[in-house]
């Protein structure tokens, strides 16, 4: 049973922003509701008013422009999973989306909602970080763009002003000779550890490595110290450094102890998934097919 609330159904971002400005913290934007309604049913969150943003046309749709993917905020995980455009140009994203929760959640849950709710045990944010994705934010006064890395502030906390709305996610295409891999592991319904790696490489020569880790700590984030440890090196040297890099990644992951496991356990898994993801991404980057890029690490 949900406690009673009022429902607003604006048809423009401008209206939705005005409603947020008017009702402040007593109202919350509502899209898929897969996270929000659960928290409301449990009594963890209470709002007098929900603002359904699914009738706002400008928040819908995906498009490919100059190699970058524009994803409207109310796009569902299922749409990302199935869209031919995403599967062809951002296959790792499509694979990641195909493994979010279960098919019913994917049919309803939105990418914008997932990022704004900022539940730490989520997949999309971690992978999007290695694409250097950004978010488009709008309010009555205007619009701005924020790097996704800056958008994540803490657990359940993002860099939105009180009357601001995430309208779209922009995902730049990867550079040439680059492949991205997302691996996750978990024993519960939500993932316990998520590691994303993008590798730019020619045979034997690793140029750039981007690494993001999520689920284990407060927010998904990039591990730039580990990235620089692995970049601009011959593959033999990178492989010899991977154990060190994995340990460093584990300690830099800000792992916390919770129902998903101890901090030490998660830090260890970060290292394991980093080594696996790196090797898969490297093989794909140099042209050999290493198989599904985003399948669960737990299946191995």
């Amino acid at each position: 049973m949900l406690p009673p609330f009022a429902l607003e159904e604006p048809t423009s971002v401008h209206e939705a922003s005005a409603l947020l400005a008017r009702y402040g913290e007593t109202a919350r934007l509502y899209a898929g509701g897969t996270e929000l309604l659960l928290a409301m049913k449990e009594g963890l969150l209470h709002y007098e008013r929900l603002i359904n943003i699914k009738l706002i046309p400008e928040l819908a749709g995906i498009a490919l422009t100059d190699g970058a993917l524009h994803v409207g905020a109310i796009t569902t995980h299922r749409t990302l999973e199935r869209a031919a455009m995403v599967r062809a140009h951002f296959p790792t994203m499509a694979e990641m989306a195909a493994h979010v929760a279960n098919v019913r959640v994917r049919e309803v849950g939105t990418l914008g909602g997932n990022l704004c709710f900022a539940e730490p045990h989520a997949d999309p944010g971690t992978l999007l970080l290695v694409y250097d994705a950004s978010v488009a934010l709008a309010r009555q006064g205007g619009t701005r763009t924020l790097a996704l890395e800056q958008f994540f502030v803490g657990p359940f906390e993002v860099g939105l002003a009180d009357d601001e709305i995430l309208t779209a996610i922009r995902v730049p295409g990867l550079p040439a000779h680059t492949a991205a891999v997302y691996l996750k592991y978990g024993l519960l319904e939500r993932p316990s550890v998520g590691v994303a790696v993008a590798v730019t490489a020619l045979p034997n020569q690793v140029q750039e490595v981007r690494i993001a880790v999520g689920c284990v700590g407060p927010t998904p984030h990039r591990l730039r110290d580990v990235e620089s440890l692995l970049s601009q090196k011959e593959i033999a040297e990178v492989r010899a450094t991977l154990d060190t890099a994995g340990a460093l990644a584990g300690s830099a992951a800000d792992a916390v102890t919770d129902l998903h496991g101890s901090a030490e356990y998660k830090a260890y898994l970060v290292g394991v998934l980093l080594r696996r993801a790196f090797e898969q991404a490297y093989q794909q980057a140099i042209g050999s097919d290493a198989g599904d890029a985003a399948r669960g690490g737990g299946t191995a």
Partner: protein
Amino acid sequence: MTDDRAHHSTATGQGLSIRVTVNGHAHDVLIEPCLTLIELIRDRLGLTGTKKSCDMQVCGACTVLLNGRPVSACTMLAFEARNASLLTIEGLAQGETLHPIQEAFIEHGGLQCGFCTPGMILAAKALLDENPAPTEEEVKHYMRGNLCRCTGYKRILESILVAAGRLAQTHNPGALEA
């Protein structure tokens, strides 16, 4: 930014009038915004084939098809069914004739206590409507969010694959999809 439709507002405690087509029959209902879809289905419409179990969209017992798409009725607001077509387990058989998926579940022992079965069968229908000839792995992946505590899944999997084969045989080229 111009608005071609007026912004709509429903106050707390105020009713929201929606039309929803359930198993082919149109219903006009007055609901509160906080009503969940499973409350509409079970408590207002009296269709108790849809089961409530985990109440957190993990187990799939409350799976119904909204415009053909599987959703968790436990964690969806009822107003989302506005102007939509809803299929519950009661709508699957044609009179006394069971749907091929239902028949396959019975013949292959795809159920024991039966509590998860309405959700299983509707999820399987959504899968086969979308992907009429799934591999075993595809069935496993799609059905991952429908939990059964009795069977161990093997016979559920068999039932779905058998149903897929039968549906493929009965669908003559150009035949209308149910």
